[in-house]
């Protein structure tokens, strides 16, 4: 039994082919990151139009790499929530059309739940129940995941997502796009203790995040009272120290809230998804914390962390339960 899955929730157009026993036969992502770079992180073209242009070639490539034909597909899956509604609709409409044309069932998958499920794919075995952290450009949230399909929100960010904070601090420091890797590289040259940046909610049990105050603190440490007419600082020890201290604050805040979530839920597994989990400092800190707490840490390889369609293999769980979507499957922009 073969599944074809589509992902168009935000910037990436992606398709994947996998089997009913979770073997990923292909996973294709038409990354626009290279296109974004010259524009400093600005979307060069509206996502939905880019998805329209990319989707059919990406599907063809996914089928080709899996060495299967469209006629062999037995189920079509699509991320239908959350995301930008116009972007989601491209994938949802294409998935519906394919399901009808092929006469096969359609399954709608939650993109955030799929990020956690990527850990199940990477582990190659059941990982539930677990605490799930989804940390990316669009999300920074903790969940209690009793099953692959039941996500209970433990805490969310009040303002910026962690990946967004990396991008915006990269802009403040003049480090360009993509912010995550650039700040991480700069941080390696600096002292993470040079600046005492705030860790929001570090002294209470609330499982919430806030990175906006941190952004302002970086702005002030960088420019002092001249924040309103600030230009990025030149390369040098100060810039490196700012990057290192910023990254340390984000990593510590994420790690602390994961530790609190493990303790509060009494669960012993932490599954981490989303593009920020590529950050090595975060991986090391989570790894050390989990070792100390006696918990197991699961972080997938990079291509399963960032937005992709393979993680929509969560559809296999829904297929087993007979949870199929009707022809009126809608794009649901809201996360909560």
């Amino acid at each position, binding site marked *: 039994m073969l599944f074809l899955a589509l992902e168009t929730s935000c910037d990436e157009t992606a398709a994947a082919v996998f089997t009913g026993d979770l073997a990923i036969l292909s996973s294709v992502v038409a990354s626009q990151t290279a296109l974004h770079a010259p524009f400093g992180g*600005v*979307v060069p073209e509206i996502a939905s139009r880019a998805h329209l242009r990319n989707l059919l070639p990406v599907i063809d490539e996914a089928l080709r790499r899996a060495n299967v034909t469209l006629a062999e597909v037995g189920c079509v899956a699509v991320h239908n929530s959350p995301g930008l*509604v116009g972007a989601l609709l491209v994938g949802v409409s294409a998935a519906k059309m394919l399901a009808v044309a092929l006469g096969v069932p359609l399954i709608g998958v939650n993109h955030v739940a799929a990020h956690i499920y990527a850990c199940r794919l990477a582990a190659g075995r059941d990982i539930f129940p677990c605490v799930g952290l989804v940390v990316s450009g*669009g999300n920074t949230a903790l969940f209690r995941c009793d099953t692959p399909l039941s996500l209970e929100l433990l805490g*969310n960010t009040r*303002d*910026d997502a962690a990946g*967004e904070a990396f991008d915006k601090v990269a802009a403040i420091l003049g480090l360009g796009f993509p912010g995550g890797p650039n700040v991480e590289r700069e941080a390696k040259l600096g002292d993470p203790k040079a600046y005492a940046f705030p860790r929001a909610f570090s002294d209470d049990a609330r499982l919430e995040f806030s990175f906006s105050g941190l952004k302002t*603190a970086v702005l002030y440490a960088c420019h002092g009272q001249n924040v*309103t007419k600030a230009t990025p600082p030149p390369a040098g020890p100060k810039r490196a120290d700012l990057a290192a201290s910023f990254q340390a604050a984000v990593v510590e805040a994420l790690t602390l809230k994961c530790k609190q979530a493990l303790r509060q839920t009494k669960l012993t597994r932490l599954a981490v998804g989303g593009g920020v989990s590529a950050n090595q400092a975060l991986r090391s800190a989570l790894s050390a914390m989990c070792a100390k707490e006696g918990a197991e840490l699961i972080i997938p390889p990079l291509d399963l962390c960032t937005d992709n369609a393979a993680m929509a293999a969560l559809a296999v769980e829904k297929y087993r339960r007979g949870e199929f979507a009707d022809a009126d499957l809608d794009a649901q922009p809201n996360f909560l």
Partner: protein
Amino acid sequence: MLPLTIGLADPAATDALGVALGERLFAGAVVALDGQLGAGKTRLVRAVAAGLKVRNLAAVNSPTFVLIQEYAARLPIAHFDAYRLGSAREFAELGVGEYFEAGGVCLVEWAAKVADVLPADRLTVTLTVTGPDSRLAVLTAGGPTHAALLAELAAALNSTPSG
């Protein structure tokens, strides 16, 4: 109508302004928010949403990545963020016009980047960083319905409009 200038001594003052504004927003209201990174735009939006009795405050955060977020509240809230957009045309192509006509409340971060496609009759809030915790808010009405809102807000906050 003259702009309304409000000194915000700390984040709590930003919250108070946002709640007072949210309580007074009407169907079709458009609030444009400007100010540099870290000025407090998203924080103000959270407070406006709280003033609008948003059903789930935990859902209200920065839409920078996803561009548009919607929240259920006393009036439906559409929360836009133009930070990543290159032009007003791109913003228009997201279908934002439909939101302006939908009878909810539209809150637009980084509005100056897309001012050309915003309704002229709107409330513009510009936040300026004046210290690590303090901000200056300048509120400007672009047309009659939002001028009435601004007058009401000024009276409620017991401030005097000033140039």
